[in-house]
Structure formats: structure tokens, C-alpha cells
């Protein structure tokens, strides 16, 4: 096991004016680990995710990432904006809840998936296309749709394009915000299964924000329960779900209907 965590978070706090969105969040994330963050709406999960993924500068606290060339660096203090944006395009991936936020609707699905390659200098059309098609297979998209625009795709298919678009650059860390939100239950199940398989195959680490405990049960190794901006419990997913200690965790778990 390596001694350096992939992501080290300490004292992460974000305020909107005087309203506390998240307070004093800290954890280490190791390569290949999936961390789930659950809680009700307004618990601060999305704000936390935005701070972690450099989309928002937190009011207090640090987020350190183990870069390929410089080791653990503070992503806000030690990286310039171009470096952060480069990180977001290569080593990191973000899968948005709404595919429209993560895709270019005016560009074909193939163009969307291949963009990251072209952004870092890929200049051979044939090779790019081959790699894109390979990823279409891996996310179980029909190859015939490569030149179609994503606005004609179903929600589940749009999410698959988003996933391929991010994974093609072999990121080491993936941020997912409600990846199955708004999808039909059967579509959710297939997408989760795909994510599970890809995470295992690629060894990517991930932070998944969701209000759906079924998603974390399936995807996450570790779980953080948030309420009112605070982390009330964290530990192994199966432990937190099967033996919740905090009153709020117990409430959350007992609220799921067992079908």
C-alpha cells in the first residue's frame, strides 16, 4: 500500500455569507478507493464536492492532491488556475448530475468523448476515432451513434457519454454528483453496474455524492454521512449502513424501504 493518499482534505469549510454549507470536513482518500457522501438535500454534499473538485474555493481548509510530478500539493495554494484546469481535464474527471452540464450538446458523441485527447495534443484522426470507439464499447454505447449529437440520446446514454468522456484521459480521481439522479430505476441499475465494473477495471478513485443509499451500497468502499454541513459519521460503507452509530445515520438507514 502506498503511503501517500491520493487526496488529503483537512478542515474544509465553506460559508455562503454567514450560512455554513459545510464545516471542518477532513479525510484521506487512497488510490482505487470510492468514497460515498450521503445526506439529505441541503446537507452540504454538493458544496463539498465542488470544493473538492476545485470548482469552488473553500472559505477555510485545504485540499491536497497527489500530482504525478510534484507529489502532494495544495490545489488552491500551490497550483495556478491553468494548472488546476489542466488537472480537471486529465487526471481528474467530473460526472455531473445533469449530462447537459458535462457535455457539449452541439458536438457529436464521438467529438465529446475524444475532446480530452485532442485537448492534450492528439493529432491523428484515425487513432482518436479508434480510441473513442473502444470507449463506446466499454460504456456499452452503440458504435453507430458515434456521430450523433447527445441531445438525441436518452438520459442513461448521455450519462454513458459523460463517463466515457471523462475516463478516456485515464483519470486517477473521479467526482460524481448524483450520477443516477433522474434516471429510470432499470437504467440506474445498469449504469451503477457499469460504474462498478469500470471503477474496478481502471482502478480509479472516486468521490460519489448521492442521496440514494443503494448507490453507495453498490459503489462505495467508504461512506460519509452529512447533516447540516457536518460529517456525523464515516467509515466502511457496509459498517455505516448495517451498524449505524449516529442517530441521524440510523434514521437515514431505517428510512429506506426494503423491496
Amino acid at each position, binding site marked *: 500500500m502506498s503511503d501517500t493518499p491520493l487526496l488529503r482534505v483537512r478542515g474544509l469549510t465553506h460559508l455562503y455569507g454567514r450560512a455554513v454549507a459545510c464545516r471542518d470536513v477532513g479525510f484521506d482518500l487512497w488510490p482505487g478507493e470510492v468514497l460515498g457522501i450521503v445526506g439529505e438535500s441541503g446537507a452540504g454534499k454538493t458544496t463539498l464536492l465542488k470544493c473538492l473538485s476545485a470548482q469552488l474555493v473553500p472559505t477555510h481548509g485545504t485540499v491536497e492532491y497527489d500530482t504525478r510530478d510534484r507529489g502532494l500539493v495544495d490545489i488552491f495554494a500551490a497550483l495556478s488556475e491553468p494548472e488546476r*484546469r489542466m488537472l480537471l481535464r486529465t487526471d481528474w474527471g467530473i460526472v455531473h448530475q445533469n449530462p447537459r452540464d458535462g457535455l457539449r450538446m452541439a458536438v*457529436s458523441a*464521438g467529438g465529446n468523448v475524444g*475532446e480530452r485527447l*485532442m*485537448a492534450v495534443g492528439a*493529432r*491523428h484522426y484515425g487513432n482518436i476515432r479508434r480510441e473513442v470507439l473502444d470507449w463506446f464499447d466499454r460504456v456499452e454505447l452503440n458504435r453507430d451513434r458515434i*456521430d450523433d449529437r447527445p441531445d438525441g440520446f436518452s438520459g442513461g446514454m448521455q450519462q454513458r457519454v459523460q463517463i466515457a468522456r471523462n475516463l478516456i484521459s485515464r483519470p486517477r480521481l473521479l467526482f460524481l454528483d448524483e450520477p443516477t439522479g433522474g434516471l429510470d430505476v432499470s437504467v440506474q441499475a445498469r449504469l451503477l453496474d457499469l460504474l462498478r465494473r469500470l471503477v474496478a477495471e481502471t482502478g480509479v478513485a472516486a468521490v460519489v455524492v448521492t442521496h440514494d443509499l443503494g448507490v453507495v451500497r453498490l459503489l462505495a468502499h467508504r461512506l460519509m454521512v452529512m447533516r447540516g454541513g457536518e460529517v456525523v459519521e464515516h467509515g466502511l460503507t457496509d459498517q455505516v449502513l448495517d451498524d449505524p452509530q449516529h442517530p441521524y445515520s440510523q434514521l437515514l438507514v431505517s428510512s429506506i424501504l426494503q423491496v
Partner: protein
Amino acid sequence: MSDDTLTLPPREDASTAAAAGAAGRLSGYNFAYLDEQTKRMIRRALLKAIAIPGYQVPFGSREMPLPYGWGTGGIQVTASVIGPDDVLKVIDQGADDTTNAVSIRKFFARTAGVATTERTTEATLIQTRHRIPETPLKEGQILVYQVPIPEPLRWLEPRETETRRMHALAEYGVMQVKLYEDIARYGRIATAYNYPVRVNGRYIMAPSPIPKFDNPKMHRNPAIQLFGAGRERRIYAVPPYTAVESLDFEDHPFAVERWDQACALCGATDSFLDEIVTDDAGGRMFLCSDTDHCAERRRSRGADAQEGTT
């Protein structure tokens, strides 16, 4: 310095240096129409543009006596750099005799009193809409392009804030995506004009709607190339001998247009040809778009022909 007219009818607005002196200028207007403060502002923008090849410099575009979309940017740039000893040529799609070219040339003849010409070789300052002259330019010449949309990334990103950031951070993956989309849809890069280029290895620039045929002419050109977009309020420039490379893919390299016909008038096989419909029965002919180039070729062929027969 009179122009020859071997087989062509005389041009109506041909003028000589002597005829257009201070006496020919409109009274009540500053030299070249713009006030000196405006010229100073535009010159500062031009200097900045020259210092950062391909970078779009915002400038305070003025109201000009012609509407947006008719070359106000080009006119403002020309007005800022033109001097009384300059010889001005104005072309529109390669021709000196279209309405726009005629109007703009008259405008400067009247407000600056400068000499004008149709011959590329004689001009010191050339304002152009959508073509680069076929005749190679020389050091000391200035080419002013009229630009409708200066932002090459606008097709994908409507936000100015975002495109500025993309240029600042050289995030140009999307430009390559555009070319990818062309190949995916048409089997080849279908962009035929306003073909994106990389200037000095750094900024991606919209060269204005010149045909891609003309792109290679921009590369390491001895002349100064200035670009003015009046409606969008941007100026950019390519200093002499600067690298200008058209974007492409390794397996789909940049290539210019080719015709399987020669110019019907002068026989040129290496110039950009316009297709002219001649009758209702589908008859057509191809002519050089650059009228001066064509006329020059015919002149020299005519001279050769005369010499040849003697």
C-alpha cells in the same frame, strides 16, 4: 504611373497622385476622417496587437459612415495608419471594381487625398475583404483585413468571458474538435474559408473569411497584416515573417482548393478562380478572383505575344 488598358475598358475611378492632392480633400474633416485621438487609441491597439501576434485586442470602435458589416473595422485601421504619401488599393473578394471596394477607395480619396491604385505592386496599403492578393507582397506593404467575427471559438462557446479564458490558457482542444466533426460528418475537413490558424505557435486566430486557398500566403509574409472587426470591436495582427499554421490532423493534412480548369481570360492555373454563370443553359466560366492579377497576366502575355510575333 498611368495604368495600361490594352484590351480592357478604362476604369472610371482611376486617379493619379497629382490629381488627388490636398485640393481634392473634403474640407471640414480631419485627415482620413478619424480625429487624432481616435487614431492614437487605435494605433495603441495596433501596437499591442503586433506585439502579441494573433491576440485579439479590444478597441473603442467608432461610428463610421457606413453600417456595421460593411468594413468599418478595416476602415478604422486603414484610417489610423494611412499617411499622405501612401498609395491605397481596396479589394472586395479580390476585385477592385465592386461596389464596396469602389466606395471605400473613394472615401479615402476624398478624406485623405491619397493616391489610389488597382495594382498590388504599386500599393503601400491594401484593404481587403475576404481575399489575399495573388501577387506576393513585399516588405513595407500593409494588408488590412475586414473581419466579421474575430473569435474563432465563437461557434462553440457563446460566452466572451469563457473564450477569453480559453485563449489565455491556450485551451484549444475544441478547435481540433471542430475539425474532427467535419471529418466525421463529411469525410474530410470541410471548412473552406475562415479556416482557423495558429499564429506564432501560440494564439488561434480567425483569418477572416478568406478562402483556405489563401491561408498559406499568411505564413511568413514579409508584409504587415492587420485585422479589424468594427462591429465586434477587436483588432489583431500578424507581424512580418511570423509563422501562421493552419490546423489539421496528421492523417488529414491541410490542403488548398484545386480547379481542373484554368482562368478563361488569362490562363492562370494557380490562382483562386471564381465561377461565373454565363447563360441559362448551364454555361459557366472560371475567372481569376484577383482582377489585378488577371489583368497583369494578360498584359504580360499580350506583351509576350507582341514580342513573340516580331
